[in-house]
Protein backbone atom coordinates (compact mmCIF):
# COMPACT_ATOMS: atom_id res chain seq x y z
CA UNK A 1 0.00 0.00 0.00
CA UNK A 2 1.40 3.38 -0.89
CA UNK A 3 0.73 5.59 2.08
CA UNK A 4 0.23 9.30 1.94
CA UNK A 5 3.07 11.48 3.10
CA UNK A 6 3.65 11.31 6.83
CA UNK A 7 1.49 14.06 8.20
CA UNK A 8 0.62 15.54 11.55
CA UNK A 9 3.20 17.21 13.71
CA UNK A 10 6.59 15.92 14.76
CA UNK A 11 6.93 14.40 18.24
CA UNK A 12 6.87 17.15 20.83
CA UNK A 13 10.31 18.41 21.89
CA UNK A 14 9.35 17.73 25.47
CA UNK A 15 9.37 14.06 24.58
CA UNK A 16 13.14 14.13 24.59
CA UNK A 17 13.12 15.29 28.20
CA UNK A 18 11.12 12.27 29.23
CA UNK A 19 12.71 9.13 30.68
CA UNK A 20 13.96 6.56 28.19
CA UNK A 21 11.70 3.89 29.70
CA UNK A 22 8.10 4.64 28.79
CA UNK A 23 6.48 1.75 30.61
CA UNK A 24 7.77 -0.37 33.44
CA UNK A 25 5.86 -3.32 34.86
CA UNK A 26 7.43 -4.69 38.06
CA UNK A 27 6.07 -7.97 39.42
CA UNK A 28 2.51 -7.06 38.50
CA UNK A 29 -0.19 -9.51 39.58
CA UNK A 30 -3.93 -9.36 39.08
CA UNK A 31 -6.80 -11.82 39.17
CA UNK A 32 -10.57 -12.00 39.08
CA UNK A 33 -11.41 -14.96 41.32
CA UNK A 34 -8.75 -16.84 39.30
CA UNK A 35 -5.25 -15.34 38.83
CA UNK A 36 -4.71 -13.85 35.36
CA UNK A 37 -1.26 -12.29 35.64
CA UNK A 38 1.33 -13.27 38.23
CA UNK A 39 4.47 -11.23 38.83
CA UNK A 40 4.69 -9.97 35.26
CA UNK A 41 7.67 -7.70 34.64
CA UNK A 42 8.83 -5.95 31.46
CA UNK A 43 9.94 -2.57 30.21
CA UNK A 44 9.05 -0.61 27.10
CA UNK A 45 11.76 1.73 25.85
CA UNK A 46 11.25 4.88 23.82
CA UNK A 47 10.75 4.04 20.14
CA UNK A 48 10.35 0.34 20.90
CA UNK A 49 7.37 -1.82 19.92
CA UNK A 50 6.51 -4.85 21.99
CA UNK A 51 4.20 -7.39 20.43
CA UNK A 52 2.18 -9.26 23.05
CA UNK A 53 1.31 -12.79 22.00
CA UNK A 54 -0.49 -15.60 23.74
CA UNK A 55 -3.66 -17.61 23.79
CA UNK A 56 -7.02 -15.99 24.50
CA UNK A 57 -7.51 -15.22 28.19
CA UNK A 58 -3.81 -14.94 29.05
CA UNK A 59 -4.18 -11.27 30.01
CA UNK A 60 -2.82 -9.41 26.97
CA UNK A 61 -5.63 -6.84 26.84
CA UNK A 62 -5.46 -6.62 30.62
CA UNK A 63 -1.82 -5.48 30.34
CA UNK A 64 -2.93 -2.59 28.10
CA UNK A 65 -5.68 -1.61 30.53
CA UNK A 66 -3.23 -1.80 33.44
CA UNK A 67 -0.80 0.42 31.53
CA UNK A 68 -3.56 3.01 31.12
CA UNK A 69 -4.59 2.77 34.75
CA UNK A 70 -8.11 1.69 33.72
CA UNK A 71 -7.67 -1.28 36.08
CA UNK A 72 -5.49 -1.42 39.18
CA UNK A 73 -3.21 -4.41 39.84
CA UNK A 74 -3.57 -6.50 43.00
CA UNK A 75 0.17 -6.15 43.60
CA UNK A 76 3.29 -4.86 41.90
CA UNK A 77 4.26 -1.48 40.46
CA UNK A 78 3.50 0.08 37.10
CA UNK A 79 5.42 3.15 36.01
CA UNK A 80 4.22 5.13 32.99
CA UNK A 81 6.32 8.00 31.60
CA UNK A 82 8.25 8.11 34.85
CA UNK A 83 5.19 8.27 37.10
CA UNK A 84 4.03 5.40 39.23
CA UNK A 85 0.36 4.96 38.45
CA UNK A 86 -0.40 2.06 40.78
CA UNK A 87 -1.45 4.28 43.66
CA UNK A 88 -2.65 7.25 41.60
CA UNK A 89 -6.20 8.51 41.97
CA UNK A 90 -8.43 8.38 38.89
CA UNK A 91 -8.58 12.18 38.59
CA UNK A 92 -4.76 12.39 38.59
CA UNK A 93 -4.54 9.75 35.89
CA UNK A 94 -6.53 11.79 33.37
CA UNK A 95 -3.65 14.17 32.54
CA UNK A 96 -1.22 11.25 32.17
CA UNK A 97 -3.61 9.37 29.89
CA UNK A 98 -3.64 12.32 27.49
CA UNK A 99 -0.05 11.36 26.62
CA UNK A 100 -1.06 7.80 25.75
CA UNK A 101 -3.02 6.66 22.71
CA UNK A 102 -5.16 3.54 22.76
CA UNK A 103 -6.71 1.66 19.87
CA UNK A 104 -9.45 -0.58 21.24
CA UNK A 105 -10.21 -4.05 19.93
CA UNK A 106 -13.63 -3.05 18.60
CA UNK A 107 -12.50 0.52 17.86
CA UNK A 108 -14.76 1.98 20.61
CA UNK A 109 -15.65 4.97 18.45
CA UNK A 110 -18.41 7.22 19.80
CA UNK A 111 -21.33 6.11 17.65
CA UNK A 112 -23.31 9.33 18.03
CA UNK A 113 -20.40 11.49 16.84
CA UNK A 114 -19.04 11.93 13.32
CA UNK A 115 -15.62 10.67 12.31
CA UNK A 116 -14.27 14.22 12.62
CA UNK A 117 -15.71 14.65 16.12
CA UNK A 118 -14.32 11.25 17.12
CA UNK A 119 -10.82 11.98 15.86
CA UNK A 120 -10.86 15.48 17.35
CA UNK A 121 -12.36 14.34 20.68
CA UNK A 122 -9.28 15.11 22.78
CA UNK A 123 -8.71 18.46 21.09
CA UNK A 124 -12.37 19.49 21.43
CA UNK A 125 -12.07 18.77 25.14
CA UNK A 126 -9.45 21.51 25.35
CA UNK A 127 -11.03 24.12 23.08
CA UNK A 128 -14.73 23.29 23.39
CA UNK A 129 -15.32 23.37 19.63
CA UNK A 130 -13.85 22.35 16.28
CA UNK A 131 -11.69 25.28 15.26
CA UNK A 132 -10.08 25.66 11.80
CA UNK A 133 -6.81 24.43 13.25
CA UNK A 134 -8.45 21.35 14.75
CA UNK A 135 -10.24 20.64 11.48
CA UNK A 136 -6.89 20.79 9.69
CA UNK A 137 -5.29 18.42 12.19
CA UNK A 138 -8.20 16.00 11.85
CA UNK A 139 -7.77 15.98 8.08
CA UNK A 140 -4.04 15.34 8.47
CA UNK A 141 -4.64 12.47 10.90
CA UNK A 142 -7.30 11.01 8.61
CA UNK A 143 -4.95 11.44 5.65
CA UNK A 144 -2.39 9.40 7.60
CA UNK A 145 -4.85 6.50 7.68
CA UNK A 146 -6.11 7.29 4.15
CA UNK A 147 -9.64 8.17 5.18
CA UNK A 148 -9.61 11.91 4.59
CA UNK A 149 -12.95 11.85 2.78
CA UNK A 150 -14.84 10.16 5.61
CA UNK A 151 -14.70 12.99 8.17
CA UNK A 152 -18.39 13.81 7.96
CA UNK A 153 -19.61 10.21 8.19
CA UNK A 154 -20.79 8.37 11.30
CA UNK A 155 -18.95 5.23 12.49
CA UNK A 156 -21.95 3.07 11.55
CA UNK A 157 -21.42 4.10 7.92
CA UNK A 158 -17.86 2.71 7.87
CA UNK A 159 -16.56 -0.83 7.38
CA UNK A 160 -14.77 -2.66 10.23
CA UNK A 161 -11.33 -1.92 8.77
CA UNK A 162 -12.18 1.75 8.25
CA UNK A 163 -13.40 2.02 11.85
CA UNK A 164 -10.11 0.53 13.04
CA UNK A 165 -8.19 3.10 10.96
CA UNK A 166 -10.30 5.95 12.35
CA UNK A 167 -9.49 4.63 15.84
CA UNK A 168 -5.78 4.82 14.94
CA UNK A 169 -6.24 8.39 13.69
CA UNK A 170 -7.99 9.26 16.96
CA UNK A 171 -5.13 7.74 18.95
CA UNK A 172 -2.32 9.51 17.07
CA UNK A 173 -3.80 12.98 16.55
CA UNK A 174 -2.11 14.36 19.67
CA UNK A 175 1.12 12.47 18.92
CA UNK A 176 1.18 10.55 22.21
CA UNK A 177 4.43 9.16 23.56
CA UNK A 178 2.98 5.68 24.01
CA UNK A 179 0.51 3.84 21.79
CA UNK A 180 -1.43 0.79 22.88
CA UNK A 181 -2.99 -1.34 20.15
CA UNK A 182 -5.49 -3.98 21.20
CA UNK A 183 -5.79 -6.50 18.35
CA UNK A 184 -5.95 -3.80 15.67
CA UNK A 185 -6.25 -6.42 12.95
CA UNK A 186 -8.63 -8.78 14.76
CA UNK A 187 -11.44 -10.01 12.52
CA UNK A 188 -10.16 -8.21 9.43
CA UNK A 189 -9.27 -9.65 6.04
CA UNK A 190 -5.53 -10.06 5.19
CA UNK A 191 -5.40 -7.04 2.87
CA UNK A 192 -6.98 -4.69 5.42
CA UNK A 193 -4.84 -6.20 8.17
CA UNK A 194 -1.74 -5.42 6.16
CA UNK A 195 -2.93 -1.85 5.71
CA UNK A 196 -3.35 -1.49 9.47
CA UNK A 197 0.06 -3.05 10.20
CA UNK A 198 1.66 -0.69 7.70
CA UNK A 199 0.16 2.22 9.64
CA UNK A 200 1.54 0.81 12.88
CA UNK A 201 4.99 0.39 11.30
CA UNK A 202 4.78 3.91 9.89
CA UNK A 203 3.94 5.32 13.30
CA UNK A 204 6.81 3.34 14.83
CA UNK A 205 9.44 4.40 12.28
CA UNK A 206 8.34 7.95 11.43
CA UNK A 207 7.43 9.17 14.90
CA UNK A 208 9.41 6.64 16.96
CA UNK A 209 6.48 6.17 19.29
CA UNK A 210 6.81 3.43 21.87
CA UNK A 211 3.99 0.94 21.58
CA UNK A 212 2.48 -2.24 22.92
CA UNK A 213 0.63 -4.28 20.33
CA UNK A 214 -1.64 -7.17 21.18
CA UNK A 215 -2.31 -9.56 18.34
CA UNK A 216 -3.40 -13.09 17.66
CA UNK A 217 -1.98 -13.01 14.16
CA UNK A 218 1.62 -14.20 14.11
CA UNK A 219 1.86 -13.00 10.54
CA UNK A 220 1.30 -9.40 11.69
CA UNK A 221 3.91 -9.74 14.40
CA UNK A 222 6.54 -11.05 11.99
CA UNK A 223 5.65 -8.43 9.39
CA UNK A 224 6.36 -5.77 11.99
CA UNK A 225 9.65 -7.40 12.91
CA UNK A 226 10.78 -7.79 9.31
CA UNK A 227 9.64 -4.53 7.73
CA UNK A 228 10.41 -0.86 8.07
CA UNK A 229 8.75 2.24 6.72
CA UNK A 230 10.61 3.64 3.73
CA UNK A 231 10.04 7.39 3.79
CA UNK A 232 11.33 7.86 0.25
CA UNK A 233 9.01 5.26 -1.24
CA UNK A 234 6.39 6.25 1.31
CA UNK A 235 5.49 2.64 2.01
CA UNK A 236 6.46 -0.34 4.10
CA UNK A 237 9.45 -2.31 2.80
CA UNK A 238 11.13 -5.54 3.95
CA UNK A 239 14.40 -5.33 5.82
CA UNK A 240 17.04 -6.78 3.51
CA UNK A 241 18.84 -9.90 4.77
CA UNK A 242 22.14 -8.99 6.42
CA UNK A 243 21.03 -5.40 6.92
CA UNK A 244 21.94 -3.78 10.25
CA UNK A 245 18.63 -1.91 10.38
CA UNK A 246 17.01 -2.18 13.82
CA UNK A 247 13.23 -2.29 13.69
CA UNK A 248 12.97 -1.97 17.50
CA UNK A 249 10.38 -4.71 17.72
CA UNK A 250 10.42 -7.41 20.37
CA UNK A 251 8.02 -10.22 21.18
CA UNK A 252 6.47 -11.10 24.53
CA UNK A 253 4.64 -14.40 24.94
CA UNK A 254 2.26 -14.97 27.82
CA UNK A 255 1.27 -18.34 29.18
CA UNK A 256 -0.12 -19.56 32.50
CA UNK A 257 -0.24 -16.02 33.96
CA UNK A 258 3.43 -15.36 33.24
CA UNK A 259 5.77 -14.15 30.52
CA UNK A 260 7.46 -17.22 29.08
CA UNK A 261 9.41 -15.44 26.35
CA UNK A 262 10.73 -11.96 25.70
CA UNK A 263 13.05 -11.26 22.82
CA UNK A 264 13.50 -10.48 19.14
CA UNK A 265 12.05 -12.38 16.19
CA UNK A 266 15.28 -14.35 15.48
CA UNK A 267 15.50 -15.28 19.18
CA UNK A 268 11.90 -16.44 19.09
CA UNK A 269 12.53 -18.58 16.03
CA UNK A 270 15.57 -20.14 17.70
CA UNK A 271 13.64 -21.01 20.86
CA UNK A 272 13.64 -24.68 21.84
CA UNK A 273 10.67 -24.33 24.18
CA UNK A 274 8.13 -26.99 23.26
CA UNK A 275 5.10 -24.71 23.76
CA UNK A 276 6.63 -21.88 21.72
CA UNK A 277 7.47 -24.21 18.86
CA UNK A 278 3.89 -25.46 18.86
CA UNK A 279 2.57 -21.92 19.10
CA UNK A 280 4.64 -20.86 16.09
CA UNK A 281 3.80 -23.88 13.97
Amino acid at each position, binding site marked *: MASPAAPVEKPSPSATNQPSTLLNFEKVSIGFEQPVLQEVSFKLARGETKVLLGEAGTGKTLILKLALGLIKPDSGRITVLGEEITAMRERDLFSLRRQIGMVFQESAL*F*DSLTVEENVAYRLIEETGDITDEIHQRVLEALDFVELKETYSLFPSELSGGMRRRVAIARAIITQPQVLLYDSPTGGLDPVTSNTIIELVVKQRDVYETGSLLVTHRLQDAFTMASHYFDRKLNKMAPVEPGSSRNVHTTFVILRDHKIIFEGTAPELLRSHDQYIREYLS
Partner: protein
Amino acid sequence: MGVNASAIVSNRGEQENSHIAMAYFEDAVKERVEAVQDFSLLAGQSLSNLFSPPRYYADTLLQADLIGVGSLPIVVLIGFFTGAVLALQTSSTLQQFGSLSLTGQLVALSMVRELGPVLTGILVAGRNASGMASELGSMKVTEQIDAMRAMGVDPTKKLVTPRVIATVTMLFFLSIISDFVGLAGGWMISYLLLGLDSNQYWTTAYQALRFGDVFMGLSKPVVFGFIIASVGCYYGMSARGGTQGVGRATTQAVVSASVLIVVTDFFLTKLLMQIFHY
Protein backbone atom coordinates in the same frame (compact mmCIF):
# COMPACT_ATOMS: atom_id res chain seq x y z
CA MET B 1 -20.67 -49.35 62.56
CA GLY B 2 -22.26 -49.08 59.09
CA VAL B 3 -25.02 -46.90 60.55
CA ASN B 4 -22.45 -44.63 62.23
CA ALA B 5 -20.49 -44.22 58.98
CA SER B 6 -23.58 -43.25 57.00
CA ALA B 7 -24.59 -40.85 59.80
CA ILE B 8 -21.13 -39.21 59.61
CA VAL B 9 -21.37 -38.96 55.81
CA SER B 10 -24.83 -37.42 55.98
CA ASN B 11 -23.66 -35.02 58.72
CA ARG B 12 -20.72 -33.94 56.55
CA GLY B 13 -23.07 -33.48 53.61
CA GLU B 14 -25.31 -31.22 55.69
CA GLN B 15 -22.30 -29.23 56.88
CA GLU B 16 -21.08 -28.75 53.30
CA ASN B 17 -24.54 -27.63 52.23
CA SER B 18 -24.74 -25.12 55.04
CA HIS B 19 -21.24 -23.85 54.12
CA ILE B 20 -22.32 -23.40 50.49
CA ALA B 21 -25.49 -21.63 51.57
CA MET B 22 -23.49 -19.40 53.92
CA ALA B 23 -20.96 -18.56 51.19
CA TYR B 24 -23.80 -17.78 48.78
CA PHE B 25 -25.45 -15.51 51.36
CA GLU B 26 -22.12 -13.81 52.10
CA ASP B 27 -21.51 -13.14 48.39
CA ALA B 28 -25.03 -11.76 47.94
CA VAL B 29 -24.61 -9.40 50.93
CA LYS B 30 -21.16 -8.27 49.73
CA GLU B 31 -22.58 -7.60 46.27
CA ARG B 32 -25.37 -5.43 47.69
CA VAL B 33 -23.00 -3.51 49.97
CA GLU B 34 -20.62 -2.94 47.05
CA ALA B 35 -23.49 -1.71 44.87
CA VAL B 36 -24.58 0.78 47.56
CA GLN B 37 -20.99 1.91 47.95
CA ASP B 38 -20.51 2.37 44.19
CA PHE B 39 -23.81 4.23 43.90
CA SER B 40 -22.92 6.54 46.80
CA LEU B 41 -19.52 7.27 45.29
CA LEU B 42 -21.00 8.06 41.88
CA ALA B 43 -23.74 10.24 43.39
CA GLY B 44 -21.20 12.08 45.56
CA GLN B 45 -18.85 12.54 42.63
CA SER B 46 -21.63 13.92 40.42
CA LEU B 47 -22.14 16.66 43.03
CA SER B 48 -18.48 17.33 43.79
CA ASN B 49 -17.86 17.75 40.04
CA LEU B 50 -19.94 20.93 40.23
CA PHE B 51 -17.05 22.64 41.99
CA SER B 52 -14.22 21.73 39.62
CA PRO B 53 -13.64 22.32 35.89
CA PRO B 54 -14.18 21.34 33.14
CA ARG B 55 -17.90 22.09 33.05
CA TYR B 56 -19.94 20.82 30.15
CA TYR B 57 -22.56 23.53 29.61
CA ALA B 58 -23.52 22.37 26.12
CA ASP B 59 -24.12 18.80 27.32
CA THR B 60 -26.18 20.11 30.24
CA LEU B 61 -28.37 22.20 27.93
CA LEU B 62 -28.84 19.27 25.57
CA GLN B 63 -29.94 17.05 28.45
CA ALA B 64 -32.22 19.79 29.80
CA ASP B 65 -33.90 19.93 26.40
CA LEU B 66 -34.27 16.14 26.23
CA ILE B 67 -35.59 15.83 29.78
CA GLY B 68 -37.56 19.06 30.16
CA VAL B 69 -39.03 19.80 26.78
CA GLY B 70 -39.25 16.14 25.86
CA SER B 71 -41.25 15.26 28.97
CA LEU B 72 -43.52 18.31 28.86
CA PRO B 73 -46.43 16.88 26.80
CA ILE B 74 -46.78 13.75 28.93
CA VAL B 75 -46.43 15.71 32.20
CA VAL B 76 -49.14 18.16 31.11
CA LEU B 77 -51.46 15.36 30.05
CA ILE B 78 -51.02 13.30 33.22
CA GLY B 79 -51.14 16.35 35.49
CA PHE B 80 -54.36 17.64 33.95
CA PHE B 81 -56.23 14.35 34.18
CA THR B 82 -54.93 13.68 37.70
CA GLY B 83 -56.39 16.98 38.88
CA ALA B 84 -59.61 16.26 37.02
CA VAL B 85 -60.06 12.77 38.44
CA LEU B 86 -59.16 14.03 41.93
CA ALA B 87 -61.98 16.57 41.79
CA LEU B 88 -64.34 13.96 40.39
CA GLN B 89 -63.53 11.29 42.99
CA THR B 90 -63.63 13.56 46.04
CA SER B 91 -66.72 15.53 45.01
CA SER B 92 -69.20 12.85 46.13
CA THR B 93 -67.60 12.58 49.60
CA LEU B 94 -67.37 16.33 50.00
CA GLN B 95 -70.99 16.67 48.90
CA GLN B 96 -72.09 14.31 51.71
CA PHE B 97 -70.65 16.76 54.25
CA GLY B 98 -71.92 19.78 52.34
CA SER B 99 -68.34 20.88 51.63
CA LEU B 100 -68.27 20.77 47.85
CA SER B 101 -66.90 24.30 47.88
CA LEU B 102 -63.66 22.92 49.32
CA THR B 103 -62.87 21.03 46.10
CA GLY B 104 -60.35 23.68 45.03
CA GLN B 105 -58.59 23.47 48.39
CA LEU B 106 -58.41 19.69 48.23
CA VAL B 107 -57.09 19.60 44.68
CA ALA B 108 -54.55 22.34 45.41
CA LEU B 109 -53.15 20.68 48.53
CA SER B 110 -53.06 17.20 46.99
CA MET B 111 -51.44 18.36 43.75
CA VAL B 112 -48.90 20.78 45.20
CA ARG B 113 -47.82 18.77 48.23
CA GLU B 114 -47.92 15.26 46.85
CA LEU B 115 -49.26 14.26 43.46
CA GLY B 116 -47.54 16.89 41.33
CA PRO B 117 -43.97 16.12 42.41
CA VAL B 118 -44.44 12.35 42.85
CA LEU B 119 -46.31 11.66 39.62
CA THR B 120 -43.98 13.90 37.63
CA GLY B 121 -41.01 12.19 39.27
CA ILE B 122 -42.29 8.73 38.39
CA LEU B 123 -43.07 9.81 34.83
CA VAL B 124 -39.64 11.31 34.31
CA ALA B 125 -38.08 8.23 35.94
CA GLY B 126 -39.89 6.00 33.44
CA ARG B 127 -38.92 8.18 30.54
CA ASN B 128 -35.45 9.44 31.38
CA ALA B 129 -33.87 7.08 33.94
CA SER B 130 -34.42 4.35 31.35
CA GLY B 131 -32.95 6.55 28.61
CA MET B 132 -29.89 7.34 30.68
CA ALA B 133 -29.35 3.71 31.69
CA SER B 134 -29.67 2.44 28.12
CA GLU B 135 -27.52 5.18 26.60
CA LEU B 136 -24.71 4.91 29.14
CA GLY B 137 -25.11 1.13 29.27
CA SER B 138 -24.59 0.87 25.51
CA MET B 139 -21.54 3.10 25.80
CA LYS B 140 -20.23 0.91 28.62
CA VAL B 141 -20.59 -2.42 26.84
CA THR B 142 -19.05 -1.08 23.61
CA GLU B 143 -16.04 0.26 25.57
CA GLN B 144 -16.90 3.88 24.73
CA ILE B 145 -16.70 4.85 28.40
CA ASP B 146 -13.30 3.16 28.69
CA ALA B 147 -12.25 5.01 25.52
CA MET B 148 -13.34 8.26 27.16
CA ARG B 149 -11.28 7.49 30.26
CA ALA B 150 -8.37 6.42 28.06
CA MET B 151 -8.45 9.83 26.37
CA GLY B 152 -8.20 11.60 29.70
CA VAL B 153 -11.87 12.59 29.96
CA ASP B 154 -13.73 11.99 33.22
CA PRO B 155 -16.98 10.17 32.33
CA THR B 156 -18.68 11.31 35.54
CA LYS B 157 -18.02 14.93 34.62
CA LYS B 158 -18.92 14.52 30.96
CA LEU B 159 -21.90 12.18 31.28
CA VAL B 160 -23.26 12.07 34.84
CA THR B 161 -23.07 15.62 36.19
CA PRO B 162 -24.81 17.27 33.19
CA ARG B 163 -27.65 14.74 33.50
CA VAL B 164 -27.97 15.35 37.25
CA ILE B 165 -28.07 19.16 36.86
CA ALA B 166 -30.52 18.95 33.94
CA THR B 167 -32.87 16.50 35.69
CA VAL B 168 -32.94 18.41 38.98
CA THR B 169 -33.61 21.73 37.24
CA MET B 170 -36.15 20.42 34.76
CA LEU B 171 -38.08 18.31 37.28
CA PHE B 172 -38.46 21.39 39.46
CA PHE B 173 -40.17 23.31 36.63
CA LEU B 174 -42.07 20.30 35.34
CA SER B 175 -43.58 19.80 38.82
CA ILE B 176 -44.74 23.42 38.91
CA ILE B 177 -46.35 22.97 35.49
CA SER B 178 -47.92 19.70 36.61
CA ASP B 179 -49.35 21.39 39.72
CA PHE B 180 -50.85 24.16 37.66
CA VAL B 181 -52.42 21.98 34.97
CA GLY B 182 -53.68 19.64 37.73
CA LEU B 183 -55.47 22.57 39.29
CA ALA B 184 -56.82 23.47 35.87
CA GLY B 185 -58.12 19.91 35.45
CA GLY B 186 -59.82 20.12 38.85
CA TRP B 187 -61.32 23.46 37.90
CA MET B 188 -62.70 22.06 34.65
CA ILE B 189 -64.58 19.30 36.53
CA SER B 190 -65.70 21.65 39.31
CA TYR B 191 -66.99 24.26 36.89
CA LEU B 192 -68.45 22.07 34.14
CA LEU B 193 -69.71 19.03 36.06
CA LEU B 194 -70.10 20.09 39.69
CA GLY B 195 -71.40 23.56 38.92
CA LEU B 196 -68.98 25.34 41.24
CA ASP B 197 -68.13 28.98 40.75
CA SER B 198 -64.75 29.60 39.09
CA ASN B 199 -63.82 32.34 41.53
CA GLN B 200 -64.70 30.19 44.49
CA TYR B 201 -62.59 27.29 43.17
CA TRP B 202 -59.47 29.36 42.50
CA THR B 203 -59.83 31.41 45.70
CA THR B 204 -60.12 28.37 47.98
CA ALA B 205 -57.28 26.70 46.10
CA TYR B 206 -55.03 29.73 46.48
CA GLN B 207 -55.92 30.45 50.10
CA ALA B 208 -55.40 26.86 51.17
CA LEU B 209 -51.73 26.91 50.26
CA ARG B 210 -49.32 27.90 53.01
CA PHE B 211 -45.56 28.42 52.77
CA GLY B 212 -44.95 24.89 54.09
CA ASP B 213 -47.08 23.37 51.33
CA VAL B 214 -45.27 25.24 48.58
CA PHE B 215 -41.88 24.48 50.13
CA MET B 216 -42.79 20.79 50.31
CA GLY B 217 -43.93 20.81 46.69
CA LEU B 218 -40.79 22.51 45.46
CA SER B 219 -38.21 20.66 47.54
CA LYS B 220 -39.40 17.19 46.56
CA PRO B 221 -38.64 17.54 42.81
CA VAL B 222 -35.08 18.55 43.63
CA VAL B 223 -34.54 15.34 45.62
CA PHE B 224 -36.45 13.20 43.10
CA GLY B 225 -34.51 14.70 40.18
CA PHE B 226 -31.24 13.77 41.86
CA ILE B 227 -32.52 10.24 42.49
CA ILE B 228 -33.66 9.76 38.88
CA ALA B 229 -30.41 10.95 37.29
CA SER B 230 -28.02 9.28 39.72
CA VAL B 231 -29.88 5.94 39.63
CA GLY B 232 -30.19 6.01 35.81
CA CYS B 233 -26.52 6.86 35.38
CA TYR B 234 -25.40 4.33 37.99
CA TYR B 235 -27.18 1.43 36.30
CA GLY B 236 -25.89 2.56 32.91
CA MET B 237 -22.30 2.92 34.06
CA SER B 238 -22.35 -0.47 35.76
CA ALA B 239 -24.03 -2.36 32.90
CA ARG B 240 -22.31 -5.49 31.66
CA GLY B 241 -23.19 -8.50 29.59
CA GLY B 242 -23.90 -7.03 26.14
CA THR B 243 -27.31 -5.95 24.90
CA GLN B 244 -29.07 -8.18 27.42
CA GLY B 245 -27.15 -6.45 30.20
CA VAL B 246 -28.21 -3.05 28.85
CA GLY B 247 -31.85 -4.17 28.86
CA ARG B 248 -31.50 -5.41 32.43
CA ALA B 249 -29.86 -2.15 33.52
CA THR B 250 -32.68 -0.14 31.93
CA THR B 251 -35.40 -2.10 33.72
CA GLN B 252 -33.56 -1.96 37.04
CA ALA B 253 -33.02 1.78 36.69
CA VAL B 254 -36.75 2.49 36.21
CA VAL B 255 -37.84 0.16 39.01
CA SER B 256 -35.22 1.38 41.49
CA ALA B 257 -35.78 5.06 40.71
CA SER B 258 -39.59 4.72 41.03
CA VAL B 259 -39.37 2.77 44.29
CA LEU B 260 -36.81 5.17 45.72
CA ILE B 261 -39.01 8.15 44.81
CA VAL B 262 -42.02 6.71 46.64
CA VAL B 263 -40.01 5.63 49.71
CA THR B 264 -38.09 8.92 49.87
CA ASP B 265 -41.36 10.80 49.48
CA PHE B 266 -42.68 9.20 52.66
CA PHE B 267 -39.66 10.13 54.76
CA LEU B 268 -39.38 13.59 53.22
CA THR B 269 -43.07 14.27 53.88
CA LYS B 270 -42.72 13.10 57.47
CA LEU B 271 -39.68 15.31 57.99
CA LEU B 272 -41.23 18.39 56.39
CA MET B 273 -44.49 17.90 58.28
CA GLN B 274 -42.54 17.96 61.51
CA ILE B 275 -40.58 21.02 60.44
CA PHE B 276 -43.71 22.93 59.44
CA HIS B 277 -45.80 21.63 62.41
CA TYR B 278 -48.60 19.91 60.47
